[in-house]
């Protein structure tokens, strides 16, 4: 299993990820852009994904939901910018549970020797927004404040168990 690389530099409102797949990039592009394929892989296994709308045109909008067994819904929406091609897809992204914190996401597909490297680049409105989205899930690039917060969370959560 290949490992996903994640980079989030302190002080920069951006997250970069990289992951390799054993498939040609045409297939990766389809998996990212065809709703009936997207719903088969995006999101945690215990959630059912439902696509509300998915208009893959310049200025087209999308909205999808992850629905839990207990009916809990997490919805996300945004707008596609420019034409989505094998070279990349550009879109805005917003979690409706944290409205107003919008990121600009780019995904690219680079094929080499039959494998495809998928890279994502998410740019947030502020470092706080970025950290809000990634805190404690991220191995690298923690800010000092968040390092302290993580320690705090570890101690408080442990002490309450």
């Amino acid at each position, binding site marked *: 299993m290949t490992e996903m690389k994640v980079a989030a530099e302190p002080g920069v409102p951006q997250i970069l990820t990289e992951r390799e797949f054993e498939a040609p990039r045409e297939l990766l592009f389809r998996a990212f852009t065809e709703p009936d394929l997207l719903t088969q892989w*995006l999101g945690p296994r215990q959630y059912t994904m439902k696509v509300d709308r998915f208009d893959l045109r310049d200025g087209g909008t999308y909205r999808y939901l992850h629905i839990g067994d207990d009916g809990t819904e997490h919805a996300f929406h945004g707008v596609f910018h420019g034409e989505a091609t094998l070279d990349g897809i550009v879109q805005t992204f917003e979690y*409706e*549970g944290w409205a107003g914190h919008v990121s600009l996401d780019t995904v690219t597909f680079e094929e080499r020797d039959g494998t495809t490297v998928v890279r994502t680049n998410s740019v947030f409105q502020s470092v706080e927004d970025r*950290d809000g989205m990634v805190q404690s899930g991220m191995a690298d690039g923690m800010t000092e404040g968040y390092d302290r917060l993580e320690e705090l969370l570890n101690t408080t959560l442990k002490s309450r168990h």
Partner: protein
Amino acid sequence: MLAAEAELDRVFGALADPTRRAILTRLAEGEATVAQLTAPFTVSQPAISRHLKVLERAGLISRTRRATARLSHLEAEPLKEAVVWLAGYREYWEESYDRLDQLLVDLQRTETDRSPFPDPGSDPTGRSTS
């Protein structure tokens, strides 16, 4: 917005500030008065009080009065909820991508099945692909 989401929003907002995070770190060691919380900072006591109000509204701390002093305590529950969501980013993508691996295997198998050409290993023309 659902009540739970509004609450989460307040928690995120409260955690976005470094001074408030430092206050929480201090409170993890035990309850403290406003004066005690102000000591390590260059900001004024009223400014710390405003930060405490934000933390209290987010449910991250509670405040009680003892004699003339007002004591702040850390409340762990909302933090837990925030962490459950926040910890998700890496996990979300790792799990999604693992599922995508499987889908790609399935898709490639289906494409091979549908192909009018058999796979190179059983090329009926006998030509070698190597």
